């Protein structure tokens, strides 16, 4: 008996009889007998709810979670404070159990919330328009690069060598499938920032876009103005990958003249959840770009009586209309995570987002000062946001093990992700960290030397 299947045996019989059938197997007559599975699936035995809770609870307990330790891990996922009220709203069945809002008249809740998401993302990034969401920041970036090639009719993409290596690997997979060349722009070995002077700027005339992380993977802030004027002067697009939290403090991509802005909005109120589900955002400037965006877009309109309402719009870009000529294959995206981000941004508001960003900056600066005072070396000298690279002369993985014994998740060792920084570690500090935690972290590190 499955408690989610209401048909009783009597009802099944009635329904079969109405079809002129005697048994369930008759329904599957189109499947040749020898293709039908002649045995039960070899799956673990069914569990009742309490048994399931016990089993899954046990698996969950085998993980060390962020409530049990103090984390300085970042590198693409961050331990930010999550307001308690968010999950109470997102767990409402009307949001949780709805499909993509194809029938607008009974989907105004989801549609209007997506319109809010588009509004808040566009405002925060300083752009004209944003879409309904992407799978995550990394795939949003890959789609931005593909779209740049589509817009400019060029087939080379430049990406800073200081972007998240994982995002670049994903970018390479997406670009490789369409034979688009990826060119890496080096970073300065002292600054960690993009070093345009070490790059052949003439190639700019062949580039569809230049991708800049702000902050970059090392937490360092780029001098975007210089990069913007070069790439735009070369006829390419400026694509920025940004941390949405940072925009409470940092100049918006729109102010730099960015053409496409992407990022991961998982950090806006979503549980960290082993890295997913997160949510990517995608914002652009200009009508031409708006009409080439991937993904769902919600627009405002009116109903027969002139009342304001919302619908999915500009669908002529999409796969269900254009099939192989669509701007992307994306269909299902991350609506509930976008709703989460929307509620987070609504709760925080202008002052709240500024405060989160400000606290991240101040606390990061505090930890950096403390580490330097303790004799540790910062790898780069550029200004940073929320994250920085520490150069260490010890085996960091061993250090991490010892830290873990004390309830600390140390930074992310760069040995395998960025081979040239094998002796370095990436440390993230969010507003969720306290002075006491940081002080003790420094003490523990001192002891590990």
């Amino acid at each position, binding site marked *: 008996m499955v408690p989610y299947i209401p048909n009783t045996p009597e009802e099944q019989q009635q329904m079969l009889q109405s*079809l002129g059938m005697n048994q369930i197997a008759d329904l*599957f*007559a189109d499947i040749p007998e020898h293709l039908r599975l002649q045995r*039960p699936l070899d799956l*673990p035995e069914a569990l009742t709810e309490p048994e*399931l*809770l016990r089993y899954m609870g046990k*698996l*969950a307990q*085998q993980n060390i979670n962020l409530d049990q330790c103090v984390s300085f891990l970042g590198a693409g996922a961050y331990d930010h404070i999550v307001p308690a*009220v968010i999950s109470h*709203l997102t767990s*409402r069945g009307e949001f*949780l*159990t709805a*499909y993509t*809002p194809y*029938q607008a*008249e009974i989907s105004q*809740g989801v549609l209007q919330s*997506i319109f809010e998401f588009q*509004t*808040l993302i*566009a405002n925060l990034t300083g752009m004209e328009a944003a879409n309904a969401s992407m799978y995550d920041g990394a*795939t949003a970036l890959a789609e931005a690069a593909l779209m740049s090639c589509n817009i400019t009719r060029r087939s080379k993409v430049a990406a800073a060598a200081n972007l998240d290596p994982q995002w670049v690997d*994903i970018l390479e997979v997406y670009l490789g*499938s369409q034979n688009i060349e990826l060119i890496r722009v080096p970073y300065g070995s002292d600054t960690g920032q993009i070093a345009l002077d070490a790059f052949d700027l003439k190639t700019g005339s062949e580039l569809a876009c230049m991708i800049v992380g702000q902050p970059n993977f090392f937490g360092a802030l780029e001098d975007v103005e210089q990069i913007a004027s070069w790439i735009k002067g070369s006829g390419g697009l400026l694509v920025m990958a940004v941390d949405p939290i940072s*925009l409470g403090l940092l*100049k918006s991509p729109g*102010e730099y003249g960015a053409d496409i802005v992407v990022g991961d909005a998982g950090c806006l109120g979503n549980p960290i*959840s*082993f*890295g*997913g589900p997160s949510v990517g955002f995608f914002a652009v400037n200009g009508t031409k770009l*708006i009409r080439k965006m991937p993904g*769902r877009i919600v627009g405002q309109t009116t*109903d027969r009586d002139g*009342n304001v309402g*919302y619908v999915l*719009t500009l669908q002529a870009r999409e*796969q*269900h209309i254009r099939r*192989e000529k669509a701007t992307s*294959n994306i269909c*299902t*995206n*991350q609506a*509930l995570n976008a709703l989460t981000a929307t509620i987070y*941004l*609504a709760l*925080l*508001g202008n002052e709240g*987002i500024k405060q989160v960003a*400000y*606290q991240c900056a*101040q606390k990061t600066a505090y930890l950096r000062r403390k580490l330097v005072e303790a004799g540790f070396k910062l790898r780069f000298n550029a200004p940073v946001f929320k994250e920085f690279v520490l150069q260490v002369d010890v085996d960091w993985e061993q250090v991490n*093990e010892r830290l873990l014994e004390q309830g600390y998740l140390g930074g992310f060792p760069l040995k395998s992700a960025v081979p040239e920084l094998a002796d370095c570690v990436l440390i993230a500090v969010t507003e969720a960290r*306290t*002075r*006491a935690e940081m002080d003790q972290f420094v003490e523990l590190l001192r002891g590990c030397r």
Partner: protein
Amino acid sequence: MLLLEMSKPGRCGYTLPKLDVPEVSLDELIPRSYLRETEPGLPQVTEPEVVRYFTQLSRKNHGVDVGFYPLGSCTMKYNPRVHEDIAALPGFSRIHPRQPESTVQGALQLMYELDQCLAEIAGLAKSSLLPAAGAHGELAGLLIIKAYHKFNGEADQRREIIIPDSAHGTNPASAQMAGFTVKEVPSDQRGGVDVAALREMVGPQTAGLMLTNPNTLGLFDENLEEIAAIIHDAGGLLYYDGANANAILGITRPGDTGFDIVHFNLHKTFSTPHGGGGPGAGPIVVSEKLVDFLPSPIVEYSDGRYHFATPKHSIGPIKAFYGNFGVLVKAYSYIRRLGAEGLKSVSENAVLNANYVMNQLKDDYYLPYDRTCMHEFVLSGKRQKELGVSTLDIAKRLLDYGVHAPTIYFPLIVEEAIMIEPTETESKATLDVFIQTMKTIAEEARRNPEQLKSAPTLTPVKRLDETKAARQPILKY
């Protein structure tokens, strides 16, 4: 009223703990030229306003929890709430993707076990849990097809992916994204792939075939083995779009028919809530010969420990970290809750419900393929069209009766298509009410077409002007 219209300076909906480190001047940290000069443009509202705003919004939305949702090809079944509780356990929701493997053994074990379950259900060898949605799984699968042919030195030659004209739009869009040329194969009179046409199309240029089965007409392709043989004999690979897998759990397995790659939509077949448009998950499962090409990372088990690994000829990563892990937790919970017998019962009842409704409606609506269907079926509104009532009008009228409309105007090969998927979690009583409602609407189309054309009238807004929205796009406040 939108959030920014409610906004008042001086309000906020959340406060942070006081900054507990000595402050330094911001100028010392970040050059002024890097700082924002404009306001972030967010609303300033309090928590109760936010709660009421979103609660009111939710009341303007239909979900499976609210009422019947027979949206074809979307499998809008009930989503058990205990799965939400499980995914929210701190041991799942509060773990960081960069933690050492030794500290996330439970998460890896879950992924490994889910992988094995999906492989058994598909009749194939090994899964990648990375894809975030069905279309994302398609892309991954197509890149595997490409990598496989490249490995065999045939990448330049095998450039065509064959896709039936009844396929979801994501299939051709994914093939294009993966760098293939799309060739469309027509459907035959019975609604399956036109085998003769397929035979004509294949050759040394064939990279593979993407097939949705049961297809979007809700029909199991009777020539499945022949189709598989034609593609394999031509040297192509077989991709199985599992969007409609709710019909086949424990009944038949794509791998046993010769398919090389399958994707499942966990947010359809395995009951994870769709969230108004995601998050979903579209894991792929592949045959033994393709395991080495899977996206990275996969989860392996050796020496008593679970660990991430990169397959030998991996196509690379396609998504940050490990996929939509929270969704995987819910899907695995569902599989464990139901077991083999429960899953088979899911498909049996889904197919029974669909056939029951189809049979009751075929006198009132034209049924283009009058055969036993699987978990869904497609009607045509062409009789009503003759009365001046479109399928869109019928769909909108259903909203007035508190039912979400079926998928409409799809598949493209059926005129005025109405695609209905009841799912197994609906009772006969609900189906009977729906049948009666559809009959009433057919009657209304005969007697009072105007009533349908002005529908819906009982919804939070009346029929919305989509043309206006596209012509003069207003995409933000």
